[in-house]
């Protein structure tokens, strides 16, 4: 079974960790990971959530007034790669 994820990149670490707080508060499962290079020139911390809960994650971020700068979808076959 291949797991798919949505990854969110942020402009600053402050925003990334504020987003981490917002997801935790909303009960959305997430993992904090190094930002994949192909996500662009962002801060070094990104948040990965199972694709099934991506809408919940995005709702929680929007409710907290937090904007991600880049979003991508990846799977667990190629941890460092992205399939957009």
């Amino acid at each position, binding site marked *: 079974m291949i797991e798919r994820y949505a990854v969110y990149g942020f*402009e*600053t*670490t*402050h*925003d990334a*960790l*504020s987003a981490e*707080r917002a997801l935790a508060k909303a009960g959305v499962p997430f993992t*904090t*990971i*190094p*930002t994949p290079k192909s996500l662009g*020139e*962002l*801060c*070094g*911390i*990104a948040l990965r959530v199972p694709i099934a809960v991506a809408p919940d994650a995005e709702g929680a971020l929007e409710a907290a007034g937090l904007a991600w700068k880049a979003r991508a979808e990846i799977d667990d076959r190629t941890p460092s790669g992205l399939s957009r």
Partner: protein
Amino acid sequence: MPHDGIIYLDHAATSWPKPPEVLEAIAYALGPAGGNPNRSAHRLALAAARLMLESRSTVASFFGVPDARDLLFVPGCTFGLNMALKGLLEPGDRAVVSSVEHNAVVRPLAVLEKAGVEVVRIPTDRSGRIDLDAAEALVAARPTKAVVCQHASNVTGAIQPIGDLADIAHDHGAILVVDGAQAAGHLKVDVTALGADVYVASGHKGLLGPQGIGVVYLAPVIEVRELVQGGSGGDSGSLTMPAARPDRYEAGTPPVPAIAGLGAAVEVLSREIDALVVQEQRLVQRLVAGLAAIDGVRVLGPAPGEERAPVASIVHASVEPDRLAYELDSRYGIAVRAGLHCAPAAHAAAGTLETGAVRFSIGRGVTEADVDLALEAVREVCSK
């Protein structure tokens, strides 16, 4: 009561002793959270970054800053004031500034004045408070980029009418820059309610944190050039600093232990500030009344009973300030500061530029007994 045999009345220089929570937070930042924040994403780095987020949120909340991204960590109040003034003012601009500023404002403005910034000064009354009518006339006279003023004096304790000054500045399209070094932690400060566009504070004085950290509040609409460029952990391919706050203003590895210590200190303050302000006001009024009653002593600044920051500076008719400070320390274990207090402009206004003065400053942990012992010691030294 005395700590380690010391009655510490030099809180305007730096607060001491620090709350134990500060030392614990610093130890945590150097140990389990000892990574480099904003760079890596391993557990040590994330712990450091989370400490920064918590501290920034705590300090922002303490100052009434709605968005913590507008609360910047800098190496100190002096750095923050340099950043604000040099990042705002360009040759041809005009700044209106109080005539009693600390050298942290006076010296960068002197550099800017040489470079072509016009600097005009607001007179003060005998107590050290600015003349608001004069301020309005000066700001209205010509287009003014910035109005610059301390919130409270480190020499006289005079508290400036910042809210009124904000109205004057904004009515004439100017930005208000406030040096909060002696107010933060001693007065309740809500930067939004005050109307300050830029508010700079020291972390190690009234805020009870360690040395090596200060904070700058920049209102969201205010554009200030960053003073320092370097690594920010993000947008690394660009030759310029990222535009987003706080990263734009925090180049280089941040001093996480100092930031964590400040966050812990402000957590303590957030619980205690209401009672602390009342206690410090009570003690400083007791101190001022007692000092004013000693033969030959003149207390600078507001009269006894008038509002002031918890600072009282004195001169004596025959005992020089340095001698009084030495006697208080060596004979009584009382720590005070003699001299010009890095604020010759304030001393010039008070008529003590030639002599300097002895400053007593109150903070967390000072008791009524400490004040009374200090008064008794001053009486003894000055009676010989």
